[in-house]
């Protein structure tokens, strides 16, 4: 069904859909995953939406500083994640956390990051949504600059290949990421090394406010693969099956030693870039309305409904359950203490060097002298 190409532009840019907006499956496609798995896709997408809803409220009420909405792109994340094993590597962007939820990262562990508290795996050092997990999947620490993780994914994949392992790396990024140095380096290296890496470009229409036609003069993003000798294809990013099948094909090709694939998933970010962004200033309302008709969750509900796995009542219940789960996670995270001052100074190096230790001690001494309770009971606890 999915036929990435090295050298046929028409094939590369032709968008492949399996599940159309009316919920119909493409002819000849049969669903091979279990009903439970289908419901897991659904629940994972709803969980992303619930996470967004709760985070928006938390941000608007001043309890967290920032979040990144995913409205409209849930199928990209879940479809791609479903094609990877737990021992594979994820090099995500900041709009990919559905991949973590799909694989069983607990919402509460994500909420600890949103609040930057003492149980945050990043110890409160990063902005919200910059997750880092090693269990149950290797969800590599997210950085804010775009494209830097792409050559890193190639390196991680190359290391696995050198050791004769069959794990692959998924490098996920948006349309803006394709203009970065990292994209160029990563595709260049992966092409030459035949690295077991899957490049997932989620073309969500805008890089903050810059529309796709101002991001590149090329015919989409998948076509860029040709210049690097990297197979590429374009899929409907609002179609969980299309994204899954394309990723699965690419993953299997990579595991077998074939090398990299570039997948462009065409989707649309129906919300802002972040909670600090108002997209109504640059996205025409009609465009959003058009995309709303192609909503990835709506179409998946129609599909599930036709199979007897979904009805409005059940959907509402799952939505409520997801909201309750995320809300409970947020409450736990909100009640968790902030990180200790020590976390400013640790993890810069494996061992704290003398000059940093001295700075920490001086900072603690000043806090103590000024009678600030947060100083850690008068001792620099490192």
């Amino acid at each position: 069904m999915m036929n990435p190409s090295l050298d046929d532009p028409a094939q590369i840019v032709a968008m492949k859909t399996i599940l159309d907006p009316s919920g119909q499956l493409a002819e000849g496609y049969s669903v091979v995953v279990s009903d439970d798995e289908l419901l897991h896709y659904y629940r994972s997408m709803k969980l992303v939406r619930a996470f967004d809803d709760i985070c928006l409220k938390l941000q608007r009420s001043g309890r967290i500083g920032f979040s990144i909405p995913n409205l409209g792109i849930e199928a990209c994340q879940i479809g791609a994640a479903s094609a990877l094993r737990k021992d594979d590597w994820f090099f995500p962007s900041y709009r990919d956390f559905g991949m973590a939820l799909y694989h069983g990262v607990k919402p509460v562990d994500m909420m600890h990051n949103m609040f930057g508290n003492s149980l945050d795996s990043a110890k409160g050092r990063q902005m919200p949504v910059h997750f880092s997990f090693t269990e149950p999947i290797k969800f590599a620490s997210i950085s804010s600059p775009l494209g830097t993780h792409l050559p890193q994914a190639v390196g991680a994949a190359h290391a696995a290949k050198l050791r004769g392992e069959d794990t692959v790396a998924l490098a996920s990024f948006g349309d803006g990421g394709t203009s970065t140095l990292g994209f160029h380096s990563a595709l260049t290296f992966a092409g030459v090394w035949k690295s077991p890496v899957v490049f997932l470009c989620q073309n969500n229409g805008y890089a903050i406010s810059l529309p796709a036609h101002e991001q590149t003069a090329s015919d989409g993003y998948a076509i860029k693969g040709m210049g690097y000798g990297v197979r590429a294809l374009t899929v409907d990013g609002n179609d969980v099956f299309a994204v899954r099948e394309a990723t699965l094909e690419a993953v299997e090709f990579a595991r077998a030693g074939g090398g990299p694939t570039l997948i462009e998933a065409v989707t649309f970010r129906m919300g802002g870039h972040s909670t600090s962004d108002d997209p109504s200033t640059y996205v025409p309302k009609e465009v959003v309305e058009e995309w709303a008709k192609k909503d990835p969750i709506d179409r998946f509900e129609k599909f599930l409904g036709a199979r007897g796995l979904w009805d409005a009542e059940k959907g509402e219940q799952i939505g409520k359950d997801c909201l309750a789960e995320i809300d409970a996670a947020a409450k736990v995270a909100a009640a968790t203490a902030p990180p200790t001052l020590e976390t400013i100074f640790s993890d810069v190096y494996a061992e704290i060097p003398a000059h940093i230790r001295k700075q920490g001690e001086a900072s603690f001494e000043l806090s103590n002298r000024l009678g600030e309770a947060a100083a850690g009971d008068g001792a620099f606890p490192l």
Partner: protein
Amino acid sequence: MAIQTLLGAVNDALRTAMRRDESVLMFGEDVGLKGGVFLATGGLQKEFGKERCFDTPLSEDGIIGAAIGMAMNGMRPVAEIQFQDFIFPAFDQIVSEAAKLRYRSGGQYTAPMVIRTPYGGGIRGGLYHSQSGEAYFCHTPGLKVVIPSTPYDAKGLLLASIADPDPVLFMEPKALYRSVKGEVPEDYYTVDLSTTRTVLEGDDVTVFCYGAMVPVVEKAAAMAAEKGISVLVIDLRTLLPLDEDGVVEAAKRTGRVVTVTEAPRFCGYAGEISAIVAERAMEYMEAPVLRVTGFDTPFPNTLEHHYLPDARRVIDAIEKVYSF
């Protein structure tokens, strides 16, 4: 013990590390079959194969980005940047990624890797084959910056860098590659990072230096000795994290301090040494704390010998602080 050049010691260290640990990989531009433009990696591909010593496409960003990914996934990459002048496309990967990975992931992910790169003037390399960019990198928490000046230290510090759990920028003074020779043990050994080396004992003036400036300072110290000035010469060897206590101790011993670097002066490493001395040993100082550095200009080609600090300029500063 064999007598080796500094370049030979680098090659020896890489060979020793690769024999000892299969996860050590050496890669960069032209490092494979050719053995590097300076031949620092000569013979490694032949001994260890193309899987462990290999050429990369011409992208510093790609080299360092890939090295980070390899390090995250269990390898010990040693990446060569052909000239330090070419490192800047990888600045983002070094400064924002490798150096911050441990911190930003709460210690879940780390990038134990070494970036080797020849730096500095003295080979008529002009603007883009001569720079000393250590100050850019010493402003980066999470990174270690190491510069050897002898063959013994080159091998021992490089082996320590490869064994280190954090990313290390290992800057090799290309002017010394073939001009200094010394005894180098054949076996594995390390020289501890963040330690200084006393090059010459002395009581009157302390001179801090590193890399290619060490022999220049040694020459100046010999000239000073003829004039009856006894100079304590300290090779800093690890610029980050610096052995600050060692620096303060050496400064206090004479009360007269000069720091010599070939990099431009403004916001340079010599300024940091002056600041440390001012903050921690001011009451011991008998004279202004001086810097002898490259000029605050780009690096010239034809007149590079006039740009680079030489014994003439160093002895001038030594005499100034001595006679203050």
